[in-house]
């Protein structure tokens, strides 16, 4: 168990007619327990630039699908700019939380509520031959032999940029699960999403097991100028 302490001090000698002094310290623990959070992104720093003002895009700071939902996650972001007018707009899903002006920082809990991921099952069947290919998600599998279970194993062993796979040895099916629930317009995964090139009558039919739904709490950050703004961030999570 790790011990991480976040301490906040708010002070002012002249905002009010009496001194303002608020100070608190929190030990960052798991949801509803006293076990210290054990995982962290580490402190990261990134400069965001764009070709011109019209080309400014928001960047995803943290994807909900990468973290435990409804957990006791905490994140910190700081605008490292020293130009007062430059700000980052911080958004969770489509709700603007606030603007971080030069030197400003924020620290808050994060639910990391993800959507659901699209799932499909690929079934290798028919007569395959060594050298047949099947392409999916930009990745091509070339069959080493004609055994469908071996071909399924080959498909499972590859790394797909947008999908993960589940495979049971000796079976001829592979379950594909999308890495991120990030689109609001998911359609069913279909056979045509793969490209088959076979010398025989081999098939790689895809049946959809689930249509996904969009992520609900990705954290995004958008700079106000294109000339280069730098932020630092850390996520401490379950």
């Amino acid at each position, binding site marked *: 168990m*790790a*011990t*991480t*302490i*976040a*301490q*906040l*001090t*708010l*002070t*002012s*000698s*002249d*905002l*009010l007619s009496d001194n*303002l002094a*608020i100070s*608190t310290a*929190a*030990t960052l*623990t798991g*949801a*509803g*327990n006293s076990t*210290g*959070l*054990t995982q*962290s992104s*580490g*402190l990261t720093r990134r400069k965001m630039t764009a070709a011109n003002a019209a080309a400014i895009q928001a960047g995803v700071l943290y994807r909900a699908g990468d973290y435990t939902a*409804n957990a*006791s996650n*905490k994140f*910190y972001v*700081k605008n490292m700019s020293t130009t*007062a007018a430059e*700000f980052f*707009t*911080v958004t*969770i*899903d489509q*709700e*603007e*939380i*606030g*603007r*971080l*002006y030069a*030197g*400003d*920082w*924020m*620290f*808050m*809990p*994060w*639910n990391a509520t993800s959507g659901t991921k699209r799932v499909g099952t690929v079934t290798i069947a028919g007569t395959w031959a060594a050298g047949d290919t099947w392409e999916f998600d930009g990745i091509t599998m070339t069959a080493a032999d004609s055994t469908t279970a071996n071909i399924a194993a080959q498909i499972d062993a590859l790394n797909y940029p947008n999908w993960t796979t589940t495979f049971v040895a000796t079976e001829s099916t592979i379950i594909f699960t999308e890495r991120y629930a990030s689109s609001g317009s998911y359609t069913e995964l279909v056979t045509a999403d793969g490209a088959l090139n076979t010398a025989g009558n081999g098939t790689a039919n895809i049946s959809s097991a689930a249509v996904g739904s969009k992520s609900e*709490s990705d954290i995004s950050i958008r700079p106000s100028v294109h000339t280069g703004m730098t932020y630092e961030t*850390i996520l*401490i999570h379950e």
Partner: protein
Amino acid sequence: MATTATLTIASTDIAGDPVTVSKQATLTKAGSSNDLDQSTGLNRVHLRSVTQKTLLAANAEGNDLAAKVYIINKSDDASLYITVAINAQTTGKLYGGDFMFIPWSQTDTDASIKVAATNWTSSTGDIPVEYALFHEDTDFLTNA
């Protein structure tokens, strides 16, 4: 009228080397170096509602102005939490002792900050919550 917010995050064992983040921000008006000059002061409420209650009502006049919000769950019970939402977006849970400090864009009057004592029951007791708003220009109390 300088108000400063200082955050320190420290751990000796969450990574292979110690982690220390210590930053201070002077709370200023939007896009300037002029200090924020208004505050609600520190407020305290006792939550006993599993449904959302408005903690800070958004004021559309505050859009594009600087505002900072501090909220802390003062419960001693680590299992008691409040769920914090802005508009319809649930942002996170503050467990007993947890706090947050965020900028607040009042993009419209729907952007109010709401809290709910989601797992409160009559046997858990109230959840004390303290909060403060630091802002510029508009008088939020007239919009509450």
